[in-house]
């Protein structure tokens, strides 16, 4: 590839593959894919310099649907894999993606510590409040009274609040998006990727198969009434008191990302011998 060719910005379409998603028609994840590729195009990235890392679940199938380098790992560990990749290869744009079960349940610990660690990557959770690939079990964001075979009558558990937890754990950028608005989502994703540090974007992405009532989300979402803040206390109040349908960037801090220097050492392995020599 010549430098001249590399200089021409690519369209969103150039970030897609011909590999067809297995997502149910109507699934919000199609729009997230569209938004993600739009964001990559807006930022004038090259597919080979982007890595999309995921775990297991419907939404975690997303890496292979992009023309970027992809990593489809094990359930719940996408953030860990993405963290290792970004620290080892700070030159890459790393986007970690997955669902609410992957990120908030089995991967919950990595979520907390990724917020704390503040590595410069973007974490996208396509939240549909359900485990889809295993046929409809409640996830941490599922309402306590949602009936299912596995938890008849509902779990009775309080729903997990990912945004306020992200804030408390130290995420530097927190936004909520809605899959039904791919352009708005693309803009949020672009801002998330541009913002140094750990950027967390929770995308409401309906599951039309197991949560068909979520098709109505498009009538419930609205732009957050106020602009984003860099004050965690204000952000906390805002996030804690909204109804979960305010869309936009809700918190944006200026915390320095965690990136230990790599490639700066000048010693050779043989130099260590003196340490052991008698």
């Amino acid at each position, binding site marked *: 590839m010549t430098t001249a060719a590399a200089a021409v910005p690519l*369209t969103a*379409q150039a970030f897609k593959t011909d590999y067809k998603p297995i997502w149910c028609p109507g*699934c919000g994840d199609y*729009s997230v894919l569209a938004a993600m590729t739009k964001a990559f195009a807006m930022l004038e990235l090259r597919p080979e310099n982007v890595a999309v890392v995921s775990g*297991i679940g419907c939404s975690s199938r997303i890496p292979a649907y992009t023309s970027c380098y992809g990593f489809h790992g094990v359930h719940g560990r996408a953030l860990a894999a993405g963290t290792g990749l970004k620290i080892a290869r700070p030159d890459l744009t790393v986007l970690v993606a997955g669902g609410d079960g992957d990120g908030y349940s089995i991967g919950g610990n990595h979520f907390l510590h990724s917020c704390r660690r503040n590595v410069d990557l973007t974490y996208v959770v396509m939240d549909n409040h359900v485990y889809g690939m295993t*046929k409809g079990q409640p996830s941490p964001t599922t309402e306590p009274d949602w009936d299912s075979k596995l938890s008849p009558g509902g779990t009775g558990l309080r729903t997990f609040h990912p945004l306020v937890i992200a804030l408390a754990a130290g995420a530097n950028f927190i936004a909520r998006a809605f899959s039904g608005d*791919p*352009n708005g989502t693309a*803009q949020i994703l672009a801002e998330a990727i541009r913002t140094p540090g750990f950027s967390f974007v929770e995308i409401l992405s309906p599951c039309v198969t197991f949560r068909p009532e979520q098709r109505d989300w498009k009538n419930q979402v609205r732009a957050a009434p106020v602009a984003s803040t860099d004050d965690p206390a204000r952000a906390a109040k805002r996030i804690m008191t909204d109804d979960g349908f305010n869309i936009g960037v809700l918190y944006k801090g200026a915390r320095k990302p965690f990136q230990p220097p790599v490639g700066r050492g000048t010693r050779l392995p043989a130099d260590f011998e003196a340490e052991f020599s008698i």
Partner: protein
Amino acid sequence: MSPAKTARKVKTRRAAAKRGVPGRKSAGARTGGDRAGFLARAWSMEVEAAERYAMLADAMEEHNNRDVAELFRKLARIEQLHADQLVAESPSGRPPGLPAGGMRWEEGEEGPETADPGELHYRMQPYHALAIALACEKRANRFFANYARKARNPAVRKAAKEMAEEEAGHVRLIEDWLKRTPEPARDWDGDPDPPVLSD
């Protein structure tokens, strides 16, 4: 939509878009202002619509709904043809006024002619697909009508108006098509089997 009608539609579009002439910068960012901006918007709208229809076709194909897949594929081809015609004279194959990384619409909006993937259902019928397309054409018509109303540059205003009329023609076309298409049976979304397990 017959190929002949499609070709006619394309021709009109090209003419209309080209008619836009450089205008004052102050014509307003929201309406693209000058001819280049207008062309970029018109082109992007078609391209996005085409890409989205292709995506919907893929989704239906993957879910073995061939009739609807073919219909979306046809719509994708038509929209792509429109886009190509709009930039037939541009050496890069892209409109000169296109921002790097593609068109950015007003916040929170898709391209006006772009279908919402959230409307899909794996058992949907061509009738449903046409209803989606109809909504897209209506939005496109409204978009150009608004554009024409707001544009201060007379040439852009004229071009937008022509495009709006063209889109109105498409609305009528799809309405006719819908009339020829059987309405879905009441149990169109029925499926005796439960969903399957995956990963």
